[in-house]
Protein backbone atom coordinates (compact mmCIF):
# COMPACT_ATOMS: atom_id res chain seq x y z
CA UNK A 1 0.00 0.00 0.00
CA UNK A 2 2.79 2.36 0.94
CA UNK A 3 4.50 1.51 -2.36
CA UNK A 4 1.30 2.48 -4.20
CA UNK A 5 1.11 5.83 -2.36
CA UNK A 6 4.73 6.59 -3.18
CA UNK A 7 4.17 5.68 -6.83
CA UNK A 8 1.14 7.97 -7.10
CA UNK A 9 2.99 10.83 -5.39
CA UNK A 10 6.00 10.25 -7.65
CA UNK A 11 3.90 10.27 -10.85
CA UNK A 12 2.12 13.44 -9.76
CA UNK A 13 5.34 15.25 -8.92
CA UNK A 14 7.15 14.11 -12.08
CA UNK A 15 4.15 15.16 -14.20
CA UNK A 16 3.94 18.48 -12.43
CA UNK A 17 7.66 19.23 -12.82
CA UNK A 18 7.53 18.14 -16.49
CA UNK A 19 4.57 20.47 -17.10
CA UNK A 20 6.31 23.33 -15.29
CA UNK A 21 9.30 22.84 -17.58
CA UNK A 22 7.18 22.42 -20.72
CA UNK A 23 5.06 25.49 -19.95
CA UNK A 24 8.07 27.62 -19.18
CA UNK A 25 7.18 31.21 -20.19
CA UNK A 26 10.82 32.10 -20.61
CA UNK A 27 11.13 30.59 -24.12
CA UNK A 28 8.40 32.73 -25.76
CA UNK A 29 9.64 35.76 -23.81
CA UNK A 30 13.14 35.25 -25.16
CA UNK A 31 11.74 34.79 -28.67
CA UNK A 32 9.61 37.95 -28.30
CA UNK A 33 12.61 39.96 -27.13
CA UNK A 34 14.68 38.63 -30.02
CA UNK A 35 11.95 39.47 -32.56
CA UNK A 36 11.72 43.03 -31.24
CA UNK A 37 15.52 43.35 -31.15
CA UNK A 38 15.74 42.23 -34.77
CA UNK A 39 12.96 44.62 -35.80
CA UNK A 40 14.69 47.54 -34.08
CA UNK A 41 18.06 46.60 -35.54
CA UNK A 42 16.58 46.34 -39.04
CA UNK A 43 15.03 49.80 -38.56
CA UNK A 44 18.46 51.11 -37.54
CA UNK A 45 20.11 49.63 -40.66
CA UNK A 46 17.37 51.03 -42.91
CA UNK A 47 17.75 54.43 -41.25
CA UNK A 48 21.49 54.32 -41.89
CA UNK A 49 20.90 53.34 -45.53
CA UNK A 50 18.49 56.27 -45.97
CA UNK A 51 21.02 58.64 -44.42
CA UNK A 52 24.03 57.38 -46.36
CA UNK A 53 22.26 56.79 -49.69
CA UNK A 54 22.55 53.80 -51.99
CA UNK A 55 25.01 55.49 -54.34
CA UNK A 56 27.59 55.93 -51.61
CA UNK A 57 27.06 52.39 -50.33
CA UNK A 58 27.66 51.13 -53.86
CA UNK A 59 30.69 53.29 -54.59
CA UNK A 60 32.59 53.60 -51.31
CA UNK A 61 35.58 51.34 -50.78
CA UNK A 62 35.12 48.73 -48.02
CA UNK A 63 37.43 50.72 -45.74
CA UNK A 64 35.54 53.99 -46.30
CA UNK A 65 32.21 52.25 -45.75
CA UNK A 66 33.47 50.74 -42.48
CA UNK A 67 34.65 54.18 -41.30
CA UNK A 68 31.29 55.69 -42.26
CA UNK A 69 29.33 52.97 -40.48
CA UNK A 70 31.61 53.35 -37.48
CA UNK A 71 30.37 56.93 -37.17
CA UNK A 72 26.82 55.58 -36.90
CA UNK A 73 27.73 53.10 -34.15
CA UNK A 74 27.26 54.15 -30.55
CA UNK A 75 27.25 52.58 -27.10
CA UNK A 76 23.98 50.79 -27.92
CA UNK A 77 24.20 49.71 -31.55
CA UNK A 78 27.11 48.58 -33.68
CA UNK A 79 27.00 48.82 -37.48
CA UNK A 80 29.15 46.78 -39.77
CA UNK A 81 29.44 45.82 -43.42
CA UNK A 82 30.59 42.87 -45.40
CA UNK A 83 31.78 43.85 -48.86
CA UNK A 84 32.90 40.94 -51.01
CA UNK A 85 34.60 39.16 -48.11
CA UNK A 86 35.92 42.30 -46.38
CA UNK A 87 34.25 42.56 -42.98
CA UNK A 88 34.34 45.59 -40.68
CA UNK A 89 33.58 43.48 -37.62
CA UNK A 90 31.65 40.44 -36.53
CA UNK A 91 28.80 40.36 -34.03
CA UNK A 92 29.23 38.51 -30.72
CA UNK A 93 28.13 34.87 -30.89
CA UNK A 94 24.41 34.44 -30.34
CA UNK A 95 23.61 38.15 -30.75
CA UNK A 96 20.47 39.23 -32.58
CA UNK A 97 21.68 40.61 -35.90
CA UNK A 98 19.81 42.47 -38.64
CA UNK A 99 21.20 42.30 -42.17
CA UNK A 100 20.28 44.00 -45.42
CA UNK A 101 21.93 42.78 -48.59
CA UNK A 102 22.45 44.88 -51.71
CA UNK A 103 23.64 43.65 -55.08
CA UNK A 104 25.16 46.41 -57.21
CA UNK A 105 25.97 44.44 -60.35
CA UNK A 106 28.59 41.91 -59.30
CA UNK A 107 29.34 43.77 -56.05
CA UNK A 108 27.42 42.49 -53.02
CA UNK A 109 27.28 44.64 -49.89
CA UNK A 110 25.74 43.36 -46.67
CA UNK A 111 25.05 45.91 -43.95
CA UNK A 112 24.61 44.55 -40.43
CA UNK A 113 23.78 45.87 -37.01
CA UNK A 114 23.63 44.37 -33.54
CA UNK A 115 23.29 45.61 -30.01
CA UNK A 116 26.67 46.51 -28.62
CA UNK A 117 25.97 44.88 -25.27
CA UNK A 118 25.41 41.52 -26.98
CA UNK A 119 22.59 39.08 -26.30
Amino acid sequence: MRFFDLAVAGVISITAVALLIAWNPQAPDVAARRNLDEAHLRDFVTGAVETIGLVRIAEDSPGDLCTLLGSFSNSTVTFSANVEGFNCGAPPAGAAVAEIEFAFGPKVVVLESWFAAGP
Partner: protein
Amino acid sequence: MVRRRAIGATVAAILVFSTLMLTNLTLLTGAAQRERLSLTADSESLLTDTAVVIGGTAGLGLLDDLQSYISSRSFQCPSAVQDIDNYTATLTATRSQDGVTVDELLSPGGGQTEPDNFTILKPFNGSSPGEIDLALQVRWSGMSALKDVSYSKTESHHLHLPVMLSQMVAFCESSVEEVGSLLKGQVFAYCDSSKIGPPLAVLDSILQGQASARGLSYYLDYNVDNSDGCRVAFACVVEQLDAVGPAGAFSVRLGQGETVAVRVGG
Protein backbone atom coordinates in the same frame (compact mmCIF):
# COMPACT_ATOMS: atom_id res chain seq x y z
CA MET B 1 -3.20 7.55 10.81
CA VAL B 2 -0.11 7.19 8.60
CA ARG B 3 -2.29 6.58 5.56
CA ARG B 4 -4.39 9.67 6.30
CA ARG B 5 -1.18 11.74 6.56
CA ALA B 6 0.03 10.35 3.25
CA ILE B 7 -3.26 11.27 1.56
CA GLY B 8 -3.06 14.75 3.11
CA ALA B 9 0.48 15.20 1.84
CA THR B 10 -0.51 14.03 -1.65
CA VAL B 11 -3.50 16.43 -1.75
CA ALA B 12 -1.29 19.26 -0.49
CA ALA B 13 1.29 18.45 -3.17
CA ILE B 14 -1.41 18.39 -5.85
CA LEU B 15 -2.68 21.77 -4.65
CA VAL B 16 0.80 23.31 -4.58
CA PHE B 17 1.74 21.94 -7.99
CA SER B 18 -1.65 22.89 -9.48
CA THR B 19 -1.21 26.45 -8.24
CA LEU B 20 2.32 26.54 -9.66
CA MET B 21 1.12 25.12 -12.98
CA LEU B 22 -1.80 27.54 -13.23
CA THR B 23 0.50 30.46 -12.46
CA ASN B 24 2.96 29.14 -15.00
CA LEU B 25 0.22 28.67 -17.58
CA THR B 26 -0.97 32.24 -17.03
CA LEU B 27 2.59 33.51 -17.48
CA LEU B 28 2.98 31.29 -20.53
CA THR B 29 -0.22 32.64 -22.09
CA GLY B 30 1.00 36.19 -21.55
CA ALA B 31 4.43 35.37 -22.96
CA ALA B 32 2.88 33.66 -25.99
CA GLN B 33 0.73 36.74 -26.57
CA ARG B 34 3.82 38.95 -26.34
CA GLU B 35 5.60 36.67 -28.81
CA ARG B 36 2.68 36.95 -31.25
CA LEU B 37 2.68 40.74 -30.91
CA SER B 38 6.45 40.86 -31.38
CA LEU B 39 6.10 38.74 -34.52
CA THR B 40 3.52 41.19 -35.86
CA ALA B 41 5.81 44.11 -35.03
CA ASP B 42 8.70 42.29 -36.68
CA SER B 43 6.56 41.64 -39.78
CA GLU B 44 5.56 45.31 -39.97
CA SER B 45 9.17 46.38 -39.59
CA LEU B 46 10.29 43.89 -42.25
CA LEU B 47 7.65 45.13 -44.70
CA THR B 48 8.37 48.84 -44.20
CA ASP B 49 12.15 48.42 -44.22
CA THR B 50 12.04 46.17 -47.28
CA ALA B 51 9.78 48.69 -49.01
CA VAL B 52 12.32 51.49 -48.45
CA VAL B 53 15.21 49.37 -49.69
CA ILE B 54 13.58 47.94 -52.83
CA GLY B 55 12.00 51.32 -53.59
CA GLY B 56 15.49 52.81 -53.54
CA THR B 57 17.18 50.09 -55.56
CA ALA B 58 14.42 50.14 -58.19
CA GLY B 59 14.67 53.94 -58.46
CA LEU B 60 18.44 53.74 -58.78
CA GLY B 61 18.00 51.16 -61.57
CA LEU B 62 15.73 53.57 -63.45
CA LEU B 63 18.23 56.41 -63.13
CA ASP B 64 20.93 54.00 -64.29
CA ASP B 65 18.86 53.16 -67.40
CA LEU B 66 18.35 56.83 -68.18
CA GLN B 67 22.05 57.55 -67.72
CA SER B 68 22.95 54.69 -70.13
CA TYR B 69 20.52 56.04 -72.72
CA ILE B 70 21.79 59.62 -72.48
CA SER B 71 25.48 58.70 -72.50
CA SER B 72 25.24 56.23 -75.37
CA ARG B 73 24.17 58.63 -78.13
CA SER B 74 24.55 62.08 -79.58
CA PHE B 75 21.36 64.15 -79.61
CA GLN B 76 20.20 66.73 -82.08
CA CYS B 77 19.93 70.05 -80.24
CA PRO B 78 16.33 70.93 -81.22
CA SER B 79 14.94 67.50 -80.30
CA ALA B 80 17.19 66.53 -77.36
CA VAL B 81 14.74 67.48 -74.61
CA GLN B 82 11.85 65.72 -76.36
CA ASP B 83 13.93 62.61 -77.09
CA ILE B 84 15.02 62.32 -73.48
CA ASP B 85 11.51 63.02 -72.20
CA ASN B 86 10.08 60.34 -74.52
CA TYR B 87 12.60 57.77 -73.35
CA THR B 88 12.06 58.73 -69.70
CA ALA B 89 8.33 58.10 -70.07
CA THR B 90 9.03 54.48 -71.06
CA LEU B 91 11.00 53.66 -67.92
CA THR B 92 9.27 51.42 -65.40
CA ALA B 93 10.54 48.96 -62.82
CA THR B 94 9.02 46.22 -60.70
CA ARG B 95 10.84 44.50 -57.86
CA SER B 96 9.80 42.01 -55.20
CA GLN B 97 11.51 40.96 -52.01
CA ASP B 98 10.39 39.49 -48.68
CA GLY B 99 6.70 39.75 -49.57
CA VAL B 100 6.83 43.35 -50.82
CA THR B 101 6.43 44.37 -54.45
CA VAL B 102 7.26 47.82 -55.71
CA ASP B 103 6.17 49.29 -59.05
CA GLU B 104 7.89 52.46 -60.17
CA LEU B 105 7.17 54.75 -63.07
CA LEU B 106 9.54 57.50 -64.15
CA SER B 107 8.33 60.53 -66.09
CA PRO B 108 9.66 63.96 -67.03
CA GLY B 109 9.37 66.37 -64.10
CA GLY B 110 7.59 69.67 -64.06
CA GLY B 111 10.76 71.74 -63.90
CA GLN B 112 10.03 73.26 -60.50
CA THR B 113 12.66 73.18 -57.76
CA GLU B 114 11.48 71.02 -54.91
CA PRO B 115 13.23 69.21 -52.07
CA ASP B 116 12.37 65.55 -51.65
CA ASN B 117 12.60 63.14 -48.75
CA PHE B 118 13.54 60.09 -50.83
CA THR B 119 17.01 60.41 -49.32
CA ILE B 120 17.99 56.83 -50.13
CA LEU B 121 18.56 58.10 -53.69
CA LYS B 122 20.69 61.07 -52.75
CA PRO B 123 22.33 62.99 -54.35
CA PHE B 124 19.65 62.54 -57.04
CA ASN B 125 16.62 63.18 -54.80
CA GLY B 126 14.74 66.42 -55.29
CA SER B 127 14.76 68.73 -58.28
CA SER B 128 17.75 70.81 -59.23
CA PRO B 129 17.37 73.95 -61.34
CA GLY B 130 18.63 73.63 -64.91
CA GLU B 131 19.20 69.88 -64.69
CA ILE B 132 17.10 66.99 -65.97
CA ASP B 133 14.05 66.98 -63.73
CA LEU B 134 12.19 63.71 -63.14
CA ALA B 135 9.04 62.58 -61.38
CA LEU B 136 8.93 59.14 -59.80
CA GLN B 137 5.68 57.39 -58.93
CA VAL B 138 6.21 54.59 -56.41
CA ARG B 139 3.55 52.04 -55.50
CA TRP B 140 4.23 49.40 -52.86
CA SER B 141 2.08 46.44 -51.91
CA GLY B 142 2.91 43.56 -49.68
CA MET B 143 1.82 40.91 -47.20
CA SER B 144 3.77 39.44 -44.32
CA ALA B 145 4.68 35.75 -44.35
CA LEU B 146 2.12 35.07 -41.61
CA LYS B 147 -0.54 36.99 -43.62
CA ASP B 148 -1.26 39.10 -40.54
CA VAL B 149 0.12 42.40 -41.85
CA SER B 150 -0.54 43.93 -45.24
CA TYR B 151 1.27 46.91 -46.70
CA SER B 152 0.09 49.32 -49.34
CA LYS B 153 1.46 52.76 -50.10
CA THR B 154 1.81 55.17 -53.02
CA GLU B 155 4.21 58.09 -53.13
CA SER B 156 5.39 60.67 -55.65
CA HIS B 157 8.97 61.90 -55.62
CA HIS B 158 11.12 64.37 -57.50
CA LEU B 159 14.51 63.27 -58.78
CA HIS B 160 17.10 64.75 -61.11
CA LEU B 161 20.08 63.77 -63.20
CA PRO B 162 22.89 66.34 -63.07
CA VAL B 163 22.83 67.11 -66.80
CA MET B 164 22.58 70.80 -67.76
CA LEU B 165 20.33 69.94 -70.67
CA SER B 166 18.41 73.18 -71.14
CA GLN B 167 21.63 75.20 -70.98
CA MET B 168 23.31 72.85 -73.48
CA VAL B 169 20.40 73.13 -75.92
CA ALA B 170 20.35 76.93 -75.64
CA PHE B 171 24.11 77.17 -76.15
CA CYS B 172 24.03 74.74 -79.06
CA GLU B 173 21.25 76.64 -80.86
CA SER B 174 22.83 80.04 -80.29
CA SER B 175 26.25 78.84 -81.51
CA VAL B 176 24.67 77.42 -84.70
CA GLU B 177 23.03 80.78 -85.22
CA GLU B 178 26.29 82.67 -84.65
CA VAL B 179 28.31 80.46 -86.99
CA GLY B 180 25.54 80.67 -89.64
CA SER B 181 25.42 84.48 -89.31
CA LEU B 182 29.19 84.72 -89.66
CA LEU B 183 29.19 82.62 -92.82
CA LYS B 184 26.20 84.40 -94.35
CA GLY B 185 27.35 87.88 -93.39
CA GLN B 186 30.78 87.84 -94.98
CA VAL B 187 32.07 87.78 -98.54
CA PHE B 188 35.12 85.54 -98.78
CA ALA B 189 37.88 86.01 -101.34
CA TYR B 190 37.93 82.34 -102.34
CA CYS B 191 35.79 79.31 -101.63
CA ASP B 192 38.61 77.73 -99.67
CA SER B 193 39.33 76.66 -96.11
CA SER B 194 42.31 79.00 -95.97
CA LYS B 195 39.96 81.96 -96.38
CA ILE B 196 36.85 80.69 -94.60
CA GLY B 197 38.68 78.93 -91.76
CA PRO B 198 40.35 81.88 -89.93
CA PRO B 199 37.18 83.84 -89.03
CA LEU B 200 35.53 80.55 -88.03
CA ALA B 201 38.53 79.73 -85.81
CA VAL B 202 38.21 83.11 -84.07
CA LEU B 203 34.52 82.56 -83.40
CA ASP B 204 35.21 78.96 -82.37
CA SER B 205 37.71 80.15 -79.79
CA ILE B 206 35.22 82.68 -78.38
CA LEU B 207 32.47 80.06 -78.18
CA GLN B 208 34.81 77.56 -76.53
CA GLY B 209 35.58 80.12 -73.84
CA GLN B 210 31.87 80.80 -73.29
CA ALA B 211 31.12 77.05 -73.09
CA SER B 212 33.95 76.49 -70.65
CA ALA B 213 32.61 79.26 -68.41
CA ARG B 214 29.31 77.33 -68.28
CA GLY B 215 31.00 74.03 -67.43
CA LEU B 216 30.52 72.76 -70.97
CA SER B 217 32.76 71.78 -73.84
CA TYR B 218 32.26 73.03 -77.41
CA TYR B 219 33.77 72.41 -80.82
CA LEU B 220 32.96 73.18 -84.44
CA ASP B 221 33.32 70.85 -87.40
CA TYR B 222 33.07 72.26 -90.91
CA ASN B 223 33.64 71.27 -94.48
CA VAL B 224 33.93 73.57 -97.51
CA ASP B 225 32.30 72.32 -100.70
CA ASN B 226 32.96 74.26 -103.93
CA SER B 227 31.57 71.72 -106.37
CA ASP B 228 28.33 73.64 -106.89
CA GLY B 229 28.79 77.27 -105.87
CA CYS B 230 30.33 77.63 -102.43
CA ARG B 231 28.77 75.86 -99.48
CA VAL B 232 29.97 75.28 -95.97
CA ALA B 233 28.52 72.37 -94.01
CA PHE B 234 29.15 72.80 -90.29
CA ALA B 235 28.15 71.20 -87.04
CA CYS B 236 28.32 72.71 -83.57
CA VAL B 237 28.83 70.12 -80.84
CA VAL B 238 28.23 70.86 -77.15
CA GLU B 239 29.26 68.37 -74.48
CA GLN B 240 29.00 68.01 -70.75
CA LEU B 241 31.97 65.84 -69.91
CA ASP B 242 31.81 65.53 -66.14
CA ALA B 243 28.22 64.61 -65.34
CA VAL B 244 28.14 62.23 -62.38
CA GLY B 245 25.23 59.82 -62.45
CA PRO B 246 24.30 56.76 -60.41
CA ALA B 247 26.60 54.62 -62.56
CA GLY B 248 29.54 57.02 -62.31
CA ALA B 249 30.83 59.81 -64.52
CA PHE B 250 29.44 60.14 -68.03
CA SER B 251 29.32 62.51 -70.99
CA VAL B 252 26.36 64.07 -72.74
CA ARG B 253 26.65 65.25 -76.33
CA LEU B 254 24.35 67.48 -78.39
CA GLY B 255 25.04 68.60 -81.92
CA GLN B 256 23.40 70.52 -84.70
CA GLY B 257 24.48 70.96 -88.27
CA GLU B 258 23.60 73.27 -91.10
CA THR B 259 24.75 73.90 -94.65
CA VAL B 260 25.17 77.52 -95.66
CA ALA B 261 25.71 79.02 -99.11
CA VAL B 262 28.68 81.38 -98.84
CA ARG B 263 29.26 84.47 -100.96
CA VAL B 264 32.60 84.54 -102.73
CA GLY B 265 34.30 87.25 -104.76
CA GLY B 266 34.85 90.83 -104.31
